[in-house]
Structure formats: structure tokens, C-alpha cells
């Protein structure tokens, strides 16, 4: 079954093709969920009702509104069919290019994130509750008995640096959009976005350096694996326990990096309308908004992956639970994978919820406060954290 086409292993190709497609769809769905929760969660926490008007009419006078979820559908349709306003004088190429620079990095960086552990398809379908699936169990048992893959699109040796690289490119989206729109407000938003993203990327990188020192790797897969180990026999080596300060620095820096409340100065609507995408309308504006929602999910994913053990469940190894007090509970391979997936998603949903909660609770920073926080508080704290970590690691602790 080792079919080759242009030197590509076809089994691997199809595995990662489906995986990448699945993760892409997942990010899109999460974007949609975020745009829904942006409305509905804000309403619920502010004692309001929220979106509930858009609906699909059903017979007998019923309406299918899905707690406002249909609003997203209506939004998408509206944005698709409405007139595409453009500035009178603008740089057409850059104006259109900016959308891709804003949107693609948001979905690209997820490539190095593991969503679950190693999956052996032959073993996976060989459990009692998945026997009902036709054809697949026999197929994998017969053709690929030893095949296994990681639920991760790209297991890069430099995975963490890859995330930073992609984050660095995403600045261009904001800059080009603001510059090409030929609008003072857009320009202001672009300048703010650029300086803010450059500033906070430093703190964000430094906050993660401590983790790299402790886990001795920049491979995301290895970082997640290392977090499943136990310190002193009972505490999972989650980033948040190893580097509690770094977690807070990273949280603030990542939110600022993604231009979200309370650091959404680049699109502060009370000051500069919509910032760098003021001049975009219709579907182009929708893509900017969507990129932003996807970025929330990505911040949640990064938090989960680097500080909260990623997909791992505490005390769970590949064949079951090993509790610190000695109990061992055997689990089948399929159960382990499904538990890992659930673990990952629960964590991601929780942090996405938390970020939305913060977004609707906190007032926007002033621009000088933002810069002060970035350069004078977060950066020294991150450096101090790094130095302490280096000393501890050098002394052989942990």
C-alpha cells in the first residue's frame, strides 16, 4: 500500500489531507461559533436578550432561530450580496492583497498544533462501541495493520518558532489594509496595529522562552508530551504550573497581539471608526472580522497547548490512567484518543469563552497605557521570569 506519486507517500498524503481539511473546517466553525458567542454571550452577561430575530420559518408558525445562530447565516448572506463599496482613490492591488495577509496566517498557524495523540487506525476501530462502522475496521486491519499518525498537520522540529513566524506575517494584513484604503482613520489604525503587534510580539516570545528552557525543545509535539509528565510524582508538568507568571504575560501579550479587547486600539470604533478595515465592506469586511474571531480561537489554542497540557488528560497515558496513588485504569486506544480530543476541545472552548468574557468586561486601554504595559511592565517581567527560569534550570531543578 506504499503508493507513490512524485515521491509522496499516498497514505500519508490522504491522512494529512483529511486532517488539514478537518482542522481548517474546525477553525471555520469555531470562527462562526465565536461570532455567535460575541453576540449572545455579551447579551447574556449584560442581562440582555441578544440576537434572536433572524430565523428560518417553519410550518405551523414556528420559527427556527437557534438562539440567534441563524443570524450568522443571515450575516454571511447579507455580506455576500450587498454592494462592495470601495474608496474612490485607493491602491487596488494592496487593498485586495491585505485580506489574504490578514486571513491566511490566522488559519495557517494551527498546522503545528497537535489536536490529539498518536492514532493507530487499525487499533482505533477495534473497540466494541465502534464495531458498527461498516468497512473501515476491516480495511485498516487488513491493509494498514501497523500504520499510525499524529493528529497534527505538521510535526515541525521548529514548531513554536513557526507560530511566531506566521504571527509576524499577519501584521502585513493590518498595515496594507490601512495604507491602501487611502483614509486617515485606516492609516491610523494600521500604524497602531503595526506598532502594537511588534511591541507585544517581543513579550509574547520571551514569555514562552521559559517553557522552552524547561522542556528543552521548541517542537510543539514534544512540549505537549512533556506536559503530561509528573513533577514530584503528582503534579502534571503543565506550563501554567511550571511558569505561572509567564502564563499571565502570554495571555496579555497574545490578546494584544491579536488586537482584541481590551487592546483593540487599531479598531477603536469610538476613535477611528473601524481602524484599518474602515474602508472595507461586504464580504471583504466579513473576512477581516472572521480572521479576528479565528484569532481568538487561536489564542485559546495556544494557551491550551503551551500552558494547559494541550490535548493531554492528567495522569492518562496511551493505555489508561495511572493515578499518583497507584490505581491503574485500563482504557482502550479509541477511548484514549476520544478523551484527548474532548480534553483539547473543552480547554479551547473554555479559554475562548474566557477571552470573550474579558472582551465584554474590560474597557479599552489608552494607547500610551498600552505601550507602557507592553514595554515597561510585561517585557521586564518576562525577562525576569526568563532569568529566574534559566537559573533554576541551570541548577538542575525540576
Amino acid at each position, binding site marked *: 500500500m506504499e503508493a507513490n506519486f512524485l515521491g509522496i507517500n499516498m497514505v500519508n498524503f490522504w491522512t494529512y489531507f483529511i486532517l488539514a481539511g478537518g482542522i481548517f473546517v474546525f477553525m471555520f466553525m469555531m470562527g462562526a461559533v465565536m461570532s455567535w458567542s460575541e453576540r449572545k454571550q455579551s447579551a*447574556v*452577561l449584560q*442581562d440582555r*436578550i441578544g440576537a434572536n430575530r433572524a430565523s428560518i420559518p417553519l410550518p405551523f408558525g414556528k420559527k427556527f432561530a437557534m438562539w440567534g445562530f441563524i443570524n450568522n447565516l443571515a450575516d454571511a448572506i447579507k455580506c455576500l450580496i450587498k454592494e462592495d463599496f470601495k474608496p474612490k482613490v485607493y491602491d487596488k492591488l494592496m487593498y485586495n492583497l491585505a485580506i489574504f495577509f490578514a486571513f491566511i496566517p490566522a488559519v495557517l498557524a494551527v498546522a503545528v498544533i497537535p489536536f490529539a495523540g498518536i492514532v493507530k487506525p487499525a487499533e482505533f476501530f477495534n473497540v466494541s462501541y465502534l464495531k458498527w462502522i461498516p468497512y473501515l475496521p476491516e480495511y485498516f486491519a487488513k491493509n494498514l495493520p501497523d500504520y499510525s499518525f499524529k493528529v497534527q498537520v505538521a510535526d515541525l522540529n521548529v514548531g513554536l518558532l513557526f507560530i511566531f513566524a506566521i504571527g509576524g506575517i499577519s501584521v502585513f494584513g493590518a498595515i496594507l489594509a490601512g495604507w491602501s484604503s487611502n483614509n486617515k482613520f485606516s492609516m491610523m489604525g494600521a500604524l497602531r496595529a503595526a506598532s502594537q503587534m511588534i511591541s507585544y510580539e517581543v513579550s509574547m516570545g520571551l514569555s514562552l522562552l521559559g517553557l522552552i528552557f524547561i522542556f528543552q525543545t521548541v517542537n510543539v509535539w514534544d512540549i505537549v508530551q512533556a506536559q503530561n509528565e509528573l513533577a514530584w510524582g503528582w503534579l502534571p508538568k503543565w506550563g501554567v504550573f511550571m511558569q505561572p507568571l509567564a502564563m499571565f504575560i502570554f495571555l496579555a501579550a497574545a490578546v494584544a497581539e491579536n488586537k482584541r479587547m481590551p487592546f483593540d486600539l487599531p479598531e477603536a470604533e469610538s476613535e477611528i471608526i473601524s481602524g484599518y478595515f474602515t474602508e472595507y465592506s461586504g464580504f471583504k469586511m466579513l473576512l477581516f472580522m472572521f480572521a479576528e474571531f479565528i484569532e481568538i480561537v487561536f489564542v485559546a489554542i495556544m494557551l491550551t497547548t503551551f500552558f494547559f497540557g494541550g490535548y493531554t488528560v492528567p495522569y492518562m497515558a496511551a493505555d489508561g490512567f495511572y493515578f499518583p496513588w497507584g490505581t491503574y485504569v485500563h482504557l482502550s486506544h479509541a477511548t484514549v484518543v476520544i478523551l484527548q480530543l474532548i480534553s483539547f476541545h473543552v480547554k479551547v472552548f473554555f479559554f475562548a469563552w474566557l477571552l470573550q*468574557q474579558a472582551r465584554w468586561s*474590560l474597557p479599552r486601554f489608552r494607547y500610551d497605557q498600552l505601550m507602557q504595559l507592553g514595554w515597561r511592565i510585561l517585557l521586564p*517581567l518576562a525577562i525576569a521570569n526568563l532569568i529566574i527560569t534559566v537559573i533554576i534550570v541551570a541548577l538542575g531543578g525540576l
Partner: protein
Amino acid sequence: MAYQIPNFPDMEYVDRKKRGLTIQVYYREIFRGVWITTKHFFRNLWKWLTFRKGGVVILYPEETRADMSPNNRGRHILVQRSNGQPRCVACKMCATICPAQCITIEAEESEDPKIQKRPQVFEIDLSHCIFCGFCVEACPVDAIRMLPETSELVGYDRFRMVYDKEKLLSWHPTVSDDVVHGYNPNA
């Protein structure tokens, strides 16, 4: 440092020059704020899950507020004479005072030489109206009033919001024909 303000336990005075690290890194206040909103979130979420209404707001326009003030300034009406003609003498005082400039009046000669002037066109663009009530106060003959209710003002079409003379006259509180000397609220 933060100081408690007497009698206001929830409020704190922050001296900017003496801010401590806890205040400067904002995290304490952030968690406090998020904690408050989270309390609200879960309380309302529980209400939703138990099929009660979570929000305190009303579902406009299906619901109207029970506690709406009887003095609420809602949609406009034109007061009529006993013969069904508007009391309005087209003096344009309301159009002059209107801050939103939403009143359009065109005058014409009345058949009655005692009245002399009457509106030929009287339109209020309620999509522009800010419901300040200046027009009611400016009117020298009490020809325009505002009803408390507003729910009829909902529409899918902005042209529906332009109320013309017939629409404004569709309410029928006829009052005495004494134009000049004000009005009797009991009439």
C-alpha cells in the same frame, strides 16, 4: 495605593502617583471585572436553561414596558376641531424649533376668514424625530401633542416613518374651537 471611600464600599480612590504593582499590572481589576460579568453570565444562563427570560430588557416591539410613564413622549398627533379639521394654523413654530428639522409644513388659505391659515401639507419624518417634545411646547394653539405609546413606529421601510396629515389626524380627541386662548386639558 487604593483607598476606600466612606459610605461607598464598592468604590475605591486610586492615587495615581502611588499606584502599587498590583494596580499597575491591572490583573487584580481585570479579574474583579471579569468576576462580576461572569456572575451575571451564569445567573442569566441558568435562567435561560430553565426556560425563563434571562435579560432584564424587553423584547421590543412584542413587549411593551408596563412601567412606561404616562408622560412618555411617543408618536405625534394633530388635535382636531369639532369639524375634523386640524387645529393647526400652519404657523411653523414647531418646524422652526425642531432641532431635527423633521417637520414639513406648507400653508394654504382657509375658507374661514377667522382661521385664515391652515396646513396643506403637514409631515413629520419620525425616523428623523428625536422626540424632544419642543414642537408640543412651541405650538401656540395646542395643535400637536405626543402620545405615550411608541410601538407603532416599528417598520421595515423608512418611508413608512413619514407621517402625513391624514395619519396624524387619525386619532380623534376633538377639542373646543377656541383657537387663540389655549386649551382645556379636560375637553
